[in-house]
Each structure stands twice: as C-alpha cells, then as structure tokens.
C-alpha cells in the first residue's frame, strides 16, 4: 500500500455551524475513466499516479461545487472547500467541509441521497496529454482547479464517491485520523503538525 497525503491544518472550532465535513473519492489513478470526461474530445483518460501526486498541492483550498440537477459542474456555485487529499492505493481521496448553513438545500439533498448514488468529479487546467492520437489519453501533468459533487452516473469515473461525514468539520477529519492511526501503528513514520495556513505532508512507499 502506498500513501501520499497533503492537508491544510485548519483551526479547530467546536460545532462550527457552517462547516459540515465530507469525504469522498475524487478519482482513481492509473486507470482509464469509465467514460470520456468533458473536454477530452471523446477520449477516455488515465490520470497517472505521478501526475496526481504532483498536483495534490493544487487541490488543497480548492472549492467543491454542484449543479442544480447534480449532473455536472457549476464552477460558480461553490458550496465547500477541500482541506485534505490523499492518494491511497489507486484512489485519490479528498475531505473537507461544506458550508452547511449557507447551502441548506444542498445539505438536504445530500442527506436524502443514497451514499451509493453520489460521486465526485475533478476540474483540471492545463492537462498535458502524452499522446493526443491515443485512444485513451494519458494525463502526465495537470493542475486541479476544483471539484464537483454530482450523481455518480454522471461522473466520468464510475468508482468515485461522496458522503457527508458523521461529525462537523474539525481540524482532523475521520480520514486523517484513520491515516494517523495507520501512521502510528507502524514504525519509521513521521507525522508533523504544523500551524494553520501551512500544509503537512506524509509519504510512505
């Protein structure tokens, strides 16, 4: 198992009324998308692990958005923020919080939705394609500019997911706590806490 992680350390605010934690699988790496993403000119794409890992810093602090029908992106309807991103196995997992109080309709919809039905979709800029003539494009470099919550059937990757976390957002997400537990359980791992505004990174091969 290989873990690459990066996070923004947020100050803890107990029971913050406008932070609702979420976690999800944004995409899978080193695997072809189930269907062609929008903007890929009909090609399915593979985001390489190396490209995803290199682009992790660009993902932190980016917003999550939604479209009214949950069928795509609306980059101007930002309802939350990504504070942590991990490449775990072949999954790029993210967590963060939604502005729960500002978007009660979104919260209502997400709480009502079956967790199996919701997924995520990345937004990339300046994606470098190794061979534009290939049937499946391999993305070797990219910058994340955001993400969307949408119906899983509308996502180009079938194996994405999205769910609201059980508790309100704190500085340590359940995902990070689990990762931390894994870190603590093994010798030779280093975990450094840094102050708000900085990022912390963990890596193990």
């Amino acid at each position, binding site marked *: 198992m290989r873990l690459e992680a990066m996070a923004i350390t947020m100050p803890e605010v107990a029971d913050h009324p406008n932070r609702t934690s979420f976690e999800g699988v944004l*995409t899978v790496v080193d695997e072809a*998308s189930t*269907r*062609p*993403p*929008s*903007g*890929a*000119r*009909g090609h399915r*794409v593979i985001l390489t692990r190396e490209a995803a890992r290199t682009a992790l810093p660009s993902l932190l602090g980016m917003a999550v958005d939604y479209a009214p029908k949950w*069928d*795509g*992106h609306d980059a101007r309807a930002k309802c939350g923020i990504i504070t942590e991103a991990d490449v775990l196995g072949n999954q790029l997992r993210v967590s963060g919080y939604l502005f729960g109080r500002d978007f009660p309709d979104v919260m209502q919809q997400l709480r009502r939705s079956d967790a199996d039905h919701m997924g*995520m*979709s*990345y*937004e*990339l*800029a*300046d*994606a*470098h*394609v*190794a*061979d*534009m*003539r*290939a049937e499946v494009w391999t993305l070797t470099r*990219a910058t994340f500019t955001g993400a*969307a919550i*949408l119906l899983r059937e*509308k*996502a*180009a*990757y079938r194996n*994405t997911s999205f769910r609201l976390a059980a508790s309100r957002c704190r500085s340590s997400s359940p995902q990070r706590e689990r990762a931390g537990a894994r870190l603590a359980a093994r010798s030779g791992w280093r975990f450094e806490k840094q102050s708000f505004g900085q990022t912390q990174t963990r890596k193990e091969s």
Partner: protein
Amino acid sequence: METENIFASLGESIERLSSAATLLERTVTWLEQREPVTAGAVEKMTAAVESQSELLERERELRRKLEAAEQQIAELRAQSSRAVAARQTLPASTTQLLAKQGISMVDSIQAGALDAALTGLSLEQRIAVKAQLLRAGMLTQ
C-alpha cells in the same frame, strides 16, 4: 550539342535532388528538437460526462473537420493529377535520342526494356535519358 543539353539537364536534376536532401535533413533535425509531435495540452477538463449540448458541439466540430479534410483531399488529388500530366513531357533532345533508338511514343517503359533499347548510346547518354524518364515518371522498375 545534344549531349551538352543532356548533361546540363542532368546537372540541374542532381542540384535539385541535393537541395531537397538538405531540406529533408534540416526538417529531421527540427523535428528531433521539438517535443513529441503527438503530445498536447488541454486547457480545461472536468471528469463529468459530456452534456447533450457539448456532444452536439463536438459533433459539429468533427463535421467541420471532416468537410475540411475532404476538401483538402480533393484539392490534393487535383494537384496530383495536374502534376502527373505536367511531368509526362520529355525534353526534345531526349525524345530525339529515344526516336533514334526506335522508341517514339512513350507512356511508360520498364528499366530492363530501356537498357536493351539504348545499347546504341554511350553510357553518359543512357544515364541522361534514364534520368529524364525518371523525372517524367515514365520509367518503371
């Protein structure tokens, strides 16, 4: 006089071939210095399936590209047929040399048959005649 013309023509052909080879060498160097030709970049991509309007737009774009490609193919075909028609003319001196050897109306001739027919000519003359026929696209292997 005729032989001089033939040699001049042969020299001209060699010069053109030489300059073409130089250009090819330069092109190869330029291509090697560039990034892989097939690599590219996409300004924006989202991992959501394309909407109906995006699909229609892509279909329109593909149709435009297809029409442009078809038009280009038609133009290239027309150019090619004009070039073939233009190429199939031989200098008068070569035609005369061939006529002396009993070859009058030539559309195309095989290299072996030509060798047999030109036995009466000197080596230099044979080379010159073959070069002209090759240039005109009339000589086949």
